[in-house]
């Protein structure tokens, strides 16, 4: 035996040792080490029961799966990242709650049964992870969006509708938004990627309340719910990857 294979073996041992530093995945996902390497490399991750994902156990419509994420109880959340391990495009959105509560509701497209994870980064740089398995018949990402059959986006692209109402516990208000957009993933044959990639909420004085970056897997005509602190009208602005922008004011 020459020395060369020995070196290769040593490297393999070293690699598996560093991978072993990752906490075991409670969801037992086959893609956990890939996801960890892609989004949390060199950072500290911890599974944390305070980080919650609420989703149906089975996707009735793979093009439109409702999900609620929350890290209430976790102090100082800087950013929330949502990924679906087994989707062809894993990253669904990243959310900076800033002056809003660390919670968000949205809908997304699922390709096959997959874990949905939310990772909440606190001020100390630690990612706190929670997640659930979603079972799905699949095809949500490679099927043309409804937009390719339904021409509504061609006349109403980036039209915003919204509603504000006081929170049950009177600590703030809830904002629900709907934006007309086909949110094409680029994976359906012959239809290029075309999706909203940024939404910013601010108050009447122009102070930024929350910042959201959305990606291809978010459902067509996105419906989003934010839990805001304070009260009063909210300014919404955003845009898509082809330079089309929108802005709207939502009043209580």
């Amino acid at each position, binding site marked *: 035996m020459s020395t060369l294979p020995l070196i290769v073996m040593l490297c393999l041992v070293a690699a598996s040792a560093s991978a072993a530093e990752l906490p075991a995945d409670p969801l037992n996902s086959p893609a956990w080490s890939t996801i960890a390497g892609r989004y949390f490399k060199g950072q500290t991750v911890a599974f944390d029961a305070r980080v919650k994902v609420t989703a149906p156990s089975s996707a009735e419509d793979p093009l439109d799966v409702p999900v609620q994420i929350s890290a209430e109880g976790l102090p100082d959340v800087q950013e929330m990242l949502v990924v679906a391990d087994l989707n062809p495009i894993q990253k669904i959105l990243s959310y900076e709650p800033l002056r809003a509560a660390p919670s968000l509701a949205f809908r997304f497209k699922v390709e096959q049964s997959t874990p949905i994870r939310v990772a909440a980064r606190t001020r100390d740089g630690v990612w706190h992870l929670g997640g659930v398995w979603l079972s799905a018949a699949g095809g949500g990402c490679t099927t043309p969006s409804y937009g390719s059959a339904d*021409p509504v986006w061609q006349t109403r692209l980036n039209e915003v509708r919204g509603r504000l109402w006081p929170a049950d516990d009177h600590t703030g208000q809830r904002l629900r938004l709907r934006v007309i957009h086909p949110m094409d993933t680029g994976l359906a044959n012959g239809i290029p990627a*075309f999706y909203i990639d940024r939404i910013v909420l601010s108050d009447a004085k122009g102070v930024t309340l929350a910042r959201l970056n959305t990606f291809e897997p978010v459902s067509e005509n996105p419906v989003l719910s934010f839990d805001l602190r304070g009260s009063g009208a909210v300014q919404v602005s955003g845009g898509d990857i082809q330079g089309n922008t929108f802005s709207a004011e939502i009043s209580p």
Partner: protein
Amino acid sequence: MSSNAVASNVAGGSIKALAGLALAASISSAFAGPVTDAMILNDQNTPNDVLTVGMGTTGQRFSSSTQINSDTVVDLVPAWSFSFGGEKQRGQETQALVHDGKIFITGSYSRLWALDQKTGSKLWSYEHRLPEGIVPCCDVVNRGAALYDNLVIFGTLDAKLVALNADTGKVVWTETIDDFKGGYSYTAAPLIVKGKLITGVSGGEFGVVGRIEARDAKTGKMVWSRPTVEGHMGYLNGKENGISGKTNATWPGDLWKTGGAATWLGCTYGADTNLIYCGTGNPAPWNAFTRPGDNLYSTSTVAINADNGKIEWSYQGTPNDHWDFDGVNEFIAFDLKKDGKTVKAGAKADRNGFFYVLNRENGKLLAASPFVTKQTWASGVDLKTGRPVESNNRPGDPQKAEKGSSVFAAPSFLGGKNWMPMAYSGQTGLFYVPANEWGMDIWNEPITYKKGAAYLGAGFTIKPLYDDYIGALRAVDPATGKIVWEYKNPAPLWGGVMTTAGNLVFTGTPEGFLKAFDAKTGKELWKFQTGSGVVGQPTTWEQDGEQYVGVASGWGGAVPLWGGEVAKKVKDISQGGSFWVFKLHKSGKATVAQQ
């Protein structure tokens, strides 16, 4: 001053080295970094880059490169090829731009790619999300982009302009030209003049109103707009800037409101006159009995002041057009040498079959001669009045009947020359015109305008004039109007022409070949089969001491859609979508020996 100070402090041997460094720095800065107005105006003289569609703002499509020449062209071989991919093929009428180590090329269905200049590897791509309801009349083509600052800017089939970061492909700004549901689209290459993005509109078959617009190229903000149909208001910095012409002077009633004159092929620019030269399309509808009068500024060349957007002069080739003789063809500035004098001239090979030479300062007609073998509609052009001498070849007035009487007319509505640009060589003094020989049966039908619907009022069918050829590449002497040589091609020519200081003329054929001809004699010297019809615009550049030639391949355009009998002849041509790059063959042995 500072370099002198440095030189005085160093030994003689180092001064040379310093000078060498300075030279190297100035060379690299000449083709790297943001694109400036000065670089654009000098594009024709810098063989290391191609910053403009037309290879210079005058659109001469002449390169000073000589490595590939009439002696060496036999050794021209492919360097690499890039496939546009996907199922979206159809016509590829684009020209590549070359800058800063990158090649920018547009494709059918409003797509754009940035490629590595050396290897052809894809750096990034932009695919515009098109709505289903787009109505391009004559195929889903795009004719190229514009470069300015760090932006690549192009137009889309849903009538938008998109400016992309040249390094990343990310959208920097986007603007809507007009409502695609009203028939507007955009296929031409934009032109940059003094930091402004100059664009027109497509949609002449749908009763749109033609206009030229100038936007701030960095932001997309509108600076001025100039309608090309008489009666419409122009604007400068958001304020009214006078109507074009005089309302109802050459248009009856309300017809000017949907008068066409689409500026669908873009413009050229003469820095010495500060004029932007734009061709305008047919008046709408085709049925001319509905619109008695000259119908300005349709089927014309319009010269617009680059700063204030006012029309300084115009020349109309086909007054009260009845044959769809769009006058969009490129107006190429050149110095006409005749009778010992040099005249600031410009030339245009019109769809109506005449090769016009005008004074580019004032629009005065200097000469008009046919560049096709048959013109049934006019026997010549009166040099005093500038008007055609018509020969009673208009189709009959349908009045209230379903169909008026039909006539046979030549050229056909696809033109003695269509969109495909000609080239001019200051070296040979010749224009190289991609012409077609065909006629048509044409008749009128009653018509009313409906938003977004075809607005023709005519029926037609195209017929070839000769059994053995339709296309003819012709070398025209602008001083005499004589055809010096011609190359006949079985299928109609539909690609752009380029000429070089290497005594060469390049053009493509629907049969799939890129061909090179001797610029003086027209002898065919080289050809290469690209796999699909070539309707793109060839261009050339130099890199690391080697000259390259690039052309898009991909059959399509208006011929297969509108060509009547001719469409049948070309229906078996394979579709495609790729960009081919060629250079002179260098044997591996020679390369090793050099090292």
